[in-house]
């Protein structure tokens, strides 16, 4: 039976996350956004609260929370934290670095990296996208050639979340060109490895506080013990990772949408025009009703996909639907919030224009909206 209602403990933990984020992460957020500055102190506070270790076993210093509890906490973070760049950085760290190592790593690899990732002393991410291959992810050209007990990696990765600060990145590279998508292999590349460097940092429309940049691998030497899974396991790791990311990363978006909705309701009740609250006009109240529908349906899809992952089931179509619907709803709700707030909504004094800039990225990363529709259509036999 499908049941993803939250327990009292899960609700309490979500509330704790809301209180923590509101209290500890927002001071100076607007200025950091203008300066494109990562909240390093906030990263440390999140680690102390347990965010980086949400899903990791206690033996590595994690909280060992189940997936539903983890996304409830991240939804709370999304509700209260005004720094989407930090949230995106945290989410990438959790879902695209920690989870693959936890799922596919050897005991020795887990011992080596997970405690540092849980404590926040290590920053992680993954590196798949290349300058010429975004949506066509499995056509990447980065090569890994085995030489004794070492692999030599050559290639360039772009739009890599956390790259400028990352201590470890899961790099996808081709080890067998004849096997196409099945010839990909994943390597845990540390920033200190010879031949690893970070190139230009991208300046983006939103997510400005998230460190994001180019990774250059020039005869980068990676020890064999840093291969994650076997040769050719890259596609399986990528698909697993993407299911988690599409099912769970967007929890922060649902939280943000809820916050925006609350603010619109409050504003519509007190803002008067023509002698009455604007919320008494159906043109406004219907907008807000539609926003509420999008929040609720987004949450249902988020929790359904996460619940399936928690059951150990595959959720390729559910995670694609969740990602598609949540990311597009977030953009739509931001536009409606700006419209409801009029000139104030369009100003940078309120937070809606920042939300809008941040929300657009969600339609692009983790597979564009078009790719999600392709996945759904393919599963329908089209």
């Amino acid at each position, binding site marked *: 039976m499908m049941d993803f209602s939250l327990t009292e403990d899960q609700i309490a933990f979500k509330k704790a996350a809301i209180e923590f984020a509101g209290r500890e992460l927002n001071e100076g957020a607007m200025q950091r956004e203008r300066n494109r500055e990562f909240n390093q102190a906030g990263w440390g506070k999140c680690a102390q609260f347990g965010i980086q270790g949400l899903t990791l076993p206690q033996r590595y210093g994690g909280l060992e929370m189940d997936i539903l509890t983890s996304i409830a906490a991240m939804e709370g973070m999304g509700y209260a934290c005004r720094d989407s760049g930090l949230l995106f950085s945290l989410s990438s760290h959790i879902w695209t670095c920690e989870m693959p190592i936890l*799922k*596919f790593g050897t005991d020795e690899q887990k011992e080596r990296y997970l405690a540092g990732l849980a404590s926040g002393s290590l920053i992680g991410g993954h590196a798949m996208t290349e300058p010429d291959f975004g949506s066509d*992810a*499995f056509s990447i050209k980065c090569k890994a050639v085995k030489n004794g007990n070492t692999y030599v990696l050559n290639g360039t990765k772009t739009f890599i979340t956390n790259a400028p600060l990352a201590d470890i990145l899961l790099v996808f590279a081709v080890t067998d060109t*004849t*096997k*196409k*998508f*099945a*010839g990909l292999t994943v390597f845990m590349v540390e920033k200190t490895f010879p031949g690893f460097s970070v190139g230009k940092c991208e300046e983006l429309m939103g997510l400005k506080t998230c460190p994001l940049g180019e990774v250059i691998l020039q005869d980068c030497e990676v020890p064999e013990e840093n291969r994650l*899974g*076997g040769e*050719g*396991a890259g*596609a*399986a*790791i*990528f*698909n*697993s990772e993407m299911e988690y990311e599409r099912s769970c990363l967007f929890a922060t978006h649902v939280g943000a949408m809820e916050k925006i909705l609350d603010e619109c309701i409050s504003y519509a009740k007190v803002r008067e025009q023509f002698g009455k609250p604007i919320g008494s006009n159906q043109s406004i109240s219907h907008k807000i009703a539609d926003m509420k529908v999008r929040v609720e349906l987004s949450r249902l899809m988020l929790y359904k996909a996460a619940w399936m992952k928690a059951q*150990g089931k*595959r959720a*390729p179509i559910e995670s694609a639907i969740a990602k598609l619907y949540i990311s597009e709803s977030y953009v739509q709700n931001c536009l409606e919030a700006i419209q409801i707030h009029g000139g104030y909504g369009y100003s940078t004094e309120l937070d809606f224009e920042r939300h809008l800039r941040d929300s657009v990225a969600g339609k692009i990363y983790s597979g564009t909206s078009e790719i999600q529709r*392709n*996945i759904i259509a*393919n*599963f329908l*036999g089209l």
Partner: protein
Amino acid sequence: MKDKTLIQQFIMNELMRGKNVSGLEVTDNLIETGVIDSLGIQILISFLERNFSIAIADEDLIPDNFESVDAIWAFVTRD
């Protein structure tokens, strides 16, 4: 009765549509010929889990298990 022709038929009907590949022998390499691509493997896994009442672990999604109809049959019928 479920046999390897069920797999063969599924691949021909669902994964080879629109691709410039004619015919399918049980020993044909599905990966090198592009019959199974990154999305196709997910669709194939769903089909196999549903029709053979098995749960396929991510760790088993390696090329050796999916490179031909014979290989897939051996994989889904292994002890």
